[in-house]
């Protein structure tokens, strides 16, 4: 048993923290909420230079061969910084999907470009009437000789406005399939959605979008199990971000309650506040350990489905509790948009609902228990 990061992971953590605190301060994060792109491209380029955009891609595909655990360390720091941008959509989920399902030529074509930041790929899974269960999706793909025609409505597609490609789930006559759709194809209509964290999320309506057959990712009708695994890994990656956010909320809260005086004493000397802070620490440490336990299993190639759902169910609720208590301890000033707290409390809600909330994952845990 080893609860510590390796020396290399500690270095990655430290350099990520230093870089993000200078390059992505909270003022920039707030500014990006109204920015058209939603992130500064020069920051994304610097991340490419650091090797982050292809962190766990194979070296031969422009990556650095890092483990999923290393990726979790980086994501924790990004969550702490509330880093805006398409990193999660492009480098984490889309990259993972291509690594797991893509043909060698698709990997060769796309992974190096994702790693260099030249290409941005997003993922279109959620539909108005279905969440993360691919069984229920309605978007369909009709095949003719050389191509498919894709029709349907996807929602909450991140950074679709700048994505060069969109990985899209659809039903074909053979079952569920994944398509790599060129973002410039005709028949795609994007409508921006207003989200709780003002990040760039879109409705993407596909109206008989023509997709060549070679754009299939994986085998038609055979990807469902792998897709489920990818969604679970994405959930664990999301947990890592959430843990970083929660840790930052606690540090911010503790710093504040040590200084803030009421009735002539620091409010942090009141037992009610102390117990709130203690509860935050318990939630954060359990969240971190459960997240890293799942990430470790993924890294080691061990079965991880139960651990992933345990982590996402727990962290979804815990992060919300932490941000709620952060507001409660800091009080009035934390309610103003200029304060950092709202970035995290709203972020906790958004993250909870991404890749399955606690109820969704508890049901998966129940299945894993054999119920």
């Amino acid at each position, binding site marked *: 048993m080893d609860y510590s990061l390796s020396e290399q992971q500690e270095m990655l953590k430290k350099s990520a923290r230093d870089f993000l605190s200078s390059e992505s301060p909270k003022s920039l994060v707030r500014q990006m909420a109204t920015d058209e792109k939603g992130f500064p491209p020069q920051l994304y380029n610097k991340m490419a230079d650091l090797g982050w955009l292809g962190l766990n891609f194979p070296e031969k595909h422009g990556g650095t061969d890092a483990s999923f655990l290393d990726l979790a360390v980086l994501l924790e720091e990004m969550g702490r910084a509330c880093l805006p941008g398409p990193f999660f959509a492009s480098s984490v989920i889309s990259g993972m999907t291509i690594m797991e399902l893509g043909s060698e030529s698709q990997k060769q074509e796309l992974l190096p470009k994702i790693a260099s930041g030249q290409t941005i790929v997003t993922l279109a899974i959620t539909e108005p009437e279905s969440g993360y269960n691919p069984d229920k999706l309605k978007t369909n793909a009709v095949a003719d000789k050389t191509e498919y025609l894709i029709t349907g409505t996807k929602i909450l597609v991140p950074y679709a406005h700048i994505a060069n490609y969109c990985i899209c789930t659809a039903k074909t006559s053979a079952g569920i399939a994944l398509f790599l759709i060129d973002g410039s194809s005709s028949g795609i209509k994007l409508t921006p959605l207003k989200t709780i964290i003002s990040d760039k999320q879109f409705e993407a309506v596909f109206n008989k979008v023509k997709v060549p057959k070679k754009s299939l990712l994986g085998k038609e009708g055979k990807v469902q199990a792998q897709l489920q695994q990818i969604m679970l890994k994405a959930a664990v990656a999301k947990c890592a971000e959430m843990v970083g956010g929660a840790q930052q909320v606690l540090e911010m809260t503790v710093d504040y309650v040590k200084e803030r005086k009421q009735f002539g004493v620091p409010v*942090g000397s009141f037992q009610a506040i102390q117990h709130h802070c203690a509860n935050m620490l318990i939630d954060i440490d359990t969240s971190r350990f*459960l997240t890293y336990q799942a990430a470790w299993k993924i890294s080691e190639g061990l079965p991880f489905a139960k651990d992933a759902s345990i982590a996402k169910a727990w962290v979804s609720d815990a992060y919300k509790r932490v941000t709620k208590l952060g507001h409660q301890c800091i009080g009035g000033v934390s309610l103003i948009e200029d304060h950092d707290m709202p970035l995290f409390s709203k972020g906790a809600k958004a993250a909870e609902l991404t890749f399955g909330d606690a109820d969704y994952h*508890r049901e998966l*845990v129940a299945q894993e*228990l054999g119920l």
Partner: protein
Amino acid sequence: MNFGFTQEEENIRKEVRAFFQKEATPELVKEIAENTGATGSGIGRKLVQKMGAKGWLCPTWPKEYGGLDSSETISFIIRDEMAYAGGPVSLVGATMAGPSILKFASEEMKREYLPRIARGEIEMILGYTEPQAGSDLAALEIRAEDKGDYFLINGQKMFNTHAHFAEYHWLGARTDTSAPKHKGISLIIVDMKSPGITVRPMTSIAGGKTNEVFYDNVKVPKKNVVGEVNRGFYYIMTALDFERMFPFGGVRRILDELVRYTSTTKREGKLLSKDPVIRQKIAEIAIEVEAAYTLYYQQAYMLDKGQIPNYQSSMQKVFSSEAAFRAFDVATAIMGPRGQLQRSSKWAPIDGEAELHYRWAIIEDIYGGTSEIQRNIIALRGLGLPAR
């Protein structure tokens, strides 16, 4: 990072599990429960002696004191399996007083007590709480007066579990009345056969025994002081950190039992396990079990690295005891009206195990330092918040 167990650790877990499958008879489990998780003097004592013979009571101790020189992780695994089986997890000598003796006492005292503890021959009693000294332990008043070559002890202790059968009192007593209250306490080992000691048992909400202990001019040799005189409060604080390492096997067991029970029990024609609300509730127990284990083994990891868990023990104690309460609360509720039926009653599901542990769990949020005291420790020691 590594959240796996080594082959050696997996092997010992299997061995301990097999041992308890054979040894944890209904009679044993009943006796342990009636003694509030302690061995008692009957079959439980024989069981710990069998464990002692294998070195499982104090595996981390040096071989010369009866241990196996093992890692803490192994010791945590053994205790977890023991808790799962309903064995005597409340081992004061082996897991609370013993480690403190090893850390603070003289060589002579180590040789006198440790090997006998490790063999399961003697058990100790935590003698901390008094009627007016609960969470504020430093307020304890029982007086140990220096009479030259012995201490003369007068006063009263309360909620001293094990006192109705164990051999030695691990007694916190006031040796200096003029010093600040936490600087005038010594830790003294008292032979319970000493003239002047009266034990009055009380029965707890979980049906187990705990006791009041009265001292009336009890003479105790001065060599029975652990470590230095008047340093007792610090030793007790350390011993409490050992005590807070809360084995969680009992909750893991109710989870397994609930999966079995709901998968085989129908209500209104439908299997309980197919009810979506019940599925959510059982999954939540499974999640909290996993969370509790991450805190449990964090302590083993720290100890194996030579660090002493501090607020981490408080985190584990408060999280685990509260999660245990939630688990048994949910378990009894899933059973419906029959959830109130007790062990050996007709119609009691899982032989009343959930009902019994529901009562136990109420106790566990209080003893060994209440949940509120644990949160104070986390806030003050863990987060550096200002004391008032």
